[in-house]
């Protein structure tokens, strides 16, 4: 499991510049276990570790959200359980299993 400190240096799309004091929780992204903090949006948790959220159903191009405010709907990610959530407005929950390519 990676620690929050990795995010500052990390190789994700987003760069974390302010730390969170919330409870540490664990989620998985494409099966890899990742540390997150309560209060992180799913989008921030995924994109501080990687560069894509999903592949477009129409042609498969990689996507990573766009408006970051719930307007464009470009950030709906799949959960391993088969549901989909809007990553920019949904907070991470302990044990959440996210997948960023294909569909379950």
């Amino acid at each position, binding site marked *: 499991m990676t620690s929050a400190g990795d995010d500052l240096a990390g190789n994700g799309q987003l760069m974390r510049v*302010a730390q*969170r004091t919330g409870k540490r929780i664990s989620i998985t992204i494409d099966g890899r276990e990742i540390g997150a*903090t309560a209060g992180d949006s799913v989008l921030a948790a995924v994109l501080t570790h990687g560069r894509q959220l999903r592949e*477009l159903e129409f042609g498969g191009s990689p*996507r990573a959200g766009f*408006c970051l*405010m719930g307007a464009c709907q*470009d950030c709906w990610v799949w959960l391993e359980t088969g*549901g989909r959530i809007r990553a920019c407005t949904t907070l991470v929950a302990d044990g959440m299993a996210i997948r960023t390519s294909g*569909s379950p």
Partner: protein
Amino acid sequence: MMTLATTRVVIIGAGPAGIRAAETLAQAGLRPILVDEGRLPGGQGYRRPSAGLALDMDALLGTQAAKYRALHARFAELAPAIDYRPETLAWAVHEGTLHVARDGAAATLPFDALLIAAGAADRVFPVKGWTLPGVFTLGGAQVILKDQGCLIGRRMVFLGSSPLLSLAALQYRQFGADVAAICDTTPLREKLLAAPALAPAAATALRGLGYLARLRRDGVPMFSGTTPLAIEGRDHVEAVRFRLGDGEERVIACDAVAFGYGLKPETQLAELAGARFGYDPVFRLWGPNLDADGRARPGLYLAGDCAAIGGADAAEASGTLAALALLADLGGEVTHRERRDMPRLRREVARYRSFQKGLARAFAWPGSRGATAIADEVELCRCENVTAGDIRAAIAADLGPVDVNRVKAITRCGMGRCQGRMCGPALQEIAAAASARPLAEVGRLRGQAPVKPLAIGSAAAPA
């Protein structure tokens, strides 16, 4: 007759406009319901950091910090006197009832009067590569910083035309971002021509000039009159290619792009509630027809950026004003406060909005010339991958007058999950340019319920 105590008023949006409206109604003895999709009150400009995030808002907001604090203090004081419902999406309005959803559970809110303060969203214009991971809206770049304490990348280009380009670039630099360039598409000459229109809010205009001076002093590369050619990269952003006013091409390496051409009012709910719309040739957009106080029709009031783009100060003033209008209409007679405050608020709102019109001239939207230049292969619809060429082909094949709603029905552009919020303005430009007709004549994309996809409890969400 309705009495104040039994009148059911619903406000949509807990930004500066909605908070001021709720405060005014509560002071008059009403207990309005205030619904907002967000987890915290404050709206976009005065968004609060999410719980547990160590972010120095005073440093981030600078001269605006006092207003931000004042608004949140007002809300804290007001909260017990109203029925505040966060994380509640308003998704339809039908015959005196607002349809809302929270945590996947739907509910209905019957109302006697509805006050919509739903704000705005970034207005964007397609460029090759704009769907790559790493391209975000300019407003979004500010949201993720305030909400999550994250920057959109490490080295970014601010691209488009908006006064918020330089503000956001400064805020990003403050947090250690390497701002590779600011590429404004409006030529300096056009900005100077628009200067007289900025007089109504000279202080704001000067603040904007101050931002530019600081960026210049810090050596941030700034270009104006640029034409964006492409955002390049294989699986994510690697560079921005653009042309300078003199024809020279430049490529700037970066890992993120913040992209925007000003704001566009969020009007879908107002439309469902029966507001009528008119074409605004300065913004090249359709906006709700309102009187000076924000009345759209009996029982329907609009305030803040969803009524007309005006910024946070206009949002506060117009929120109070619309609520006073609502009270005057309910009471049947004009109270002392209404007589005293309404004329001043009308003047203030008008002044801020005319300043925003000046800004819309100084930070030009690419318009029909820009639309003609979009190559056929560029995606216009991000949701379903419809290209500019698909739109042009549909228009060429279809006989009869071009109407954007017909183009939408044929190509599905504007029908995807964003409901035309991202593609709409550019779709209208491309349809007008491709059919050689004035923008006002190709019509306006009509809104539909649900105005945003309903998040049905994550486990049960359909594919």
